[in-house]
């Protein structure tokens, strides 16, 4: 098992958001997490990545055989976790290229060969239909919503993590951008690495082979199924599924 979450209880500012959540993600699998607004989806992914604001009151997170429940975010990144942010921060004065080079060095612990790195970056940007100029722009500063999401996917491709968590990466994107982003996701995916995708829309899942779909309501996973569950949610809504599950 790549990711094992056991009985996870999480609070923010004293309010409990996750009430004993269990989730297993195996090597090579693609999982989708759906749920109504406020169900705790973002709390879950921020907790997995190690945001200090989210307090783990109970339970554990095991990643690749290692208990990461209390590790700082950078140690989790080094272990092979990646989070594509819903609203990535703007970092003025730091170029995308410089940022990603620093990030790769931090994660691999090895120096990065500049020429080869730049070439690789350029190729991956072209695949995502990103203008070259973005490499020299300050990270996310003045990027459109779509460009921010593409920049997150670009980072995923450059860092090649064991598990990539995509937090509503498709939200706010036009159809063309969704297509490009799902191409990027397909390019990343292979038989060894895994995906956990949070989404409200079935669009981004069309070109992906989905193994499991989980429905999160009120801080708990109320139903798990195969990709057919996506259609059921589309037809019936979350509340019906949640009511049926109780």
């Amino acid at each position, binding site marked *: 098992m790549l990711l094992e979450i056991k009985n996870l209880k999480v609070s923010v500012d004293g309010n409990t958001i996750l009430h004993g959540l269990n989730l297993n993600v195996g090597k090579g699998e693609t999982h989708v997490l759906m749920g109504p607004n406020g169900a705790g989806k973002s709390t879950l992914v921020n907790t997995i*990545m190690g945001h*200090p604001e989210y307090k783990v009151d109970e339970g554990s997170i095991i990643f690749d055989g290692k208990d990461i429940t209390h590790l700082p975010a*950078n140690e989790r*990144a080094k272990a092979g976790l990646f989070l594509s942010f819903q609203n990535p921060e703007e*970092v*003025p*004065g*730091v170029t995308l290229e410089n940022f990603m080079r620093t990030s790769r060095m*931090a994660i691999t612990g090895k120096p990065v060969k500049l020429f080869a790195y730049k070439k690789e970056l350029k190729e991956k940007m072209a695949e995502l239909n990103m203008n070259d100029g973005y490499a020299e722009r300050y990270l996310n500063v003045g990027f459109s919503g779509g460009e921010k999401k593409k920049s997150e996917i670009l980072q995923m491709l450059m860092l090649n993590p064991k598990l990539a968590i995509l937090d509503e990466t498709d939200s706010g994107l036009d159809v063309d951008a969704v297509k490009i982003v799902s191409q990027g996701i397909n390019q990343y995916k292979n038989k060894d690495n895994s995906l956990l995708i949070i989404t409200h829309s079935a669009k981004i899942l069309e070109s992906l082979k989905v193994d499991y779909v989980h429905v999160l309501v009120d801080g708990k996973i109320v139903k798990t199924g195969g990709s057919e569950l996506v259609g059921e949610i589309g037809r019936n809504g979350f509340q019906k599924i949640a009511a049926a599950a109780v």
Partner: protein
Amino acid sequence: MEKKKTMVKDIDRTIYDIKDKVHPSYEVKEGLTPEIVEEISKTKNDPKWMHDFRLKSLEIYNNLKVPDWGPSLDGLNMNDIVTYIRPDTPMRGNWAQVPDDIKNTFERLGIPEAERKSLAGVGAQYDSEVVYHNVREEVRRQGVVYTDMESAIRDPQYGSMVRDHFMKLVPPTDHKFAALHGAVWSGGSFVYVPPHVKVEIPLQSYFRLNAPGAGQFEHTLIILGEGADLHFIEGCSAPKYNVANLHAGCVELYVAKNAHLRYSTIENWSKNMYNLNTKRALVEEGGNMEWVSGSFGSHVSYLYPMSILNGENSRMEFTGITFAGKGQNLDTGAKVVHAAPHTYSDISTKSISKDGGTCTYRSSVVILPQAYGCKSSVNCESLMLDDRSRSDTIPVMDIQNDDVDVGHEAKIGRISDDAIFYLMSRGMSEEDARAMIVTGFAEPIAKELPVEYAVEMNNLIKLEMEGAIG
């Protein structure tokens, strides 16, 4: 997960803090009396006008009050300050002739190396006197004059030019420390660039104050002829002592019609220094004045370079960064007077305060009634790295006609936890994440600095940020 706090370290000042043994050939007693001023004047062999000017300035000094609107100057007692210390060497035009300890100090600061690599000329002042001055032959052949102030005053060709301009822009009546400067000034550089001459690579003067309890009062006078072009760099540093040191320099810049002057300063005084410096530029029609200013050192600074836009279509741009750590109260900014129509000014500053340091941004924009069609834009941003640090913004605008376009933006902020989390999720440690955010904050200013100073500034920030977590 428990939240950790990063402690940010002080600037590594090792290079600056190496003290030379003090063995001046001559110094005056501490304090300020007519006798001391007479003595300085005599030992410098002043012409009569300068002798009289010094005594007049002293009189003005005695009648002016210490400013009470800025950081406290209570720790500065003029009776303890030695105003004139002559190093044990005459001025040289060749580093080999400069005494070893003084030469080594400038070597450590990278001055001779920078001169070989990227400068058209260098002046180096040590305590009260210039110990080295040299300018490349090809620049000299263009008619450019770059020498110490004392030589310039006595120069048969340029002496009268100095007399016509010396403390005319910054009169001794301007404020108490300008008057002090007029009375005891010593050293500094004189630059004259003839009309239509472009100096392709920069000139640099470096001011080093080695003696404890001393004052440095160098005077920099730069006169550009019509259409001339120059980049001048000024650097300053001092080792730390437990007694107050004082820097009250004066910079006067004359930018003639269509001339262009870029004046870059990196100030890295030690934290016992009172830096009460006055800088002013007069810009004529179509002239362009650019200031780049980095303030990292000193205990207390009052520094507001001023530009008087005297001719139509003249411009000034001020780009500044201030970094205040423990025990520092740095009051910096800029002033501009739009005295002619269609003049343009742009002030852009950043400040970083940490570890209880205080940064105050203070500026003044005056647009006179006759100066219609002007444009002025002020933008200041402050970053506080912890709860103990302070940042204030005091912009003043005095707009005396309606036909102007004036903008002001101020931002004060802290590093957000979400930004740190974002960077950490990409593998960076908390310290590296903070350092990256601070370096990024300073980046727009860093890229305006001369390249070796930009590298040095980034290193300073990184050194500061490599921190113990506790």
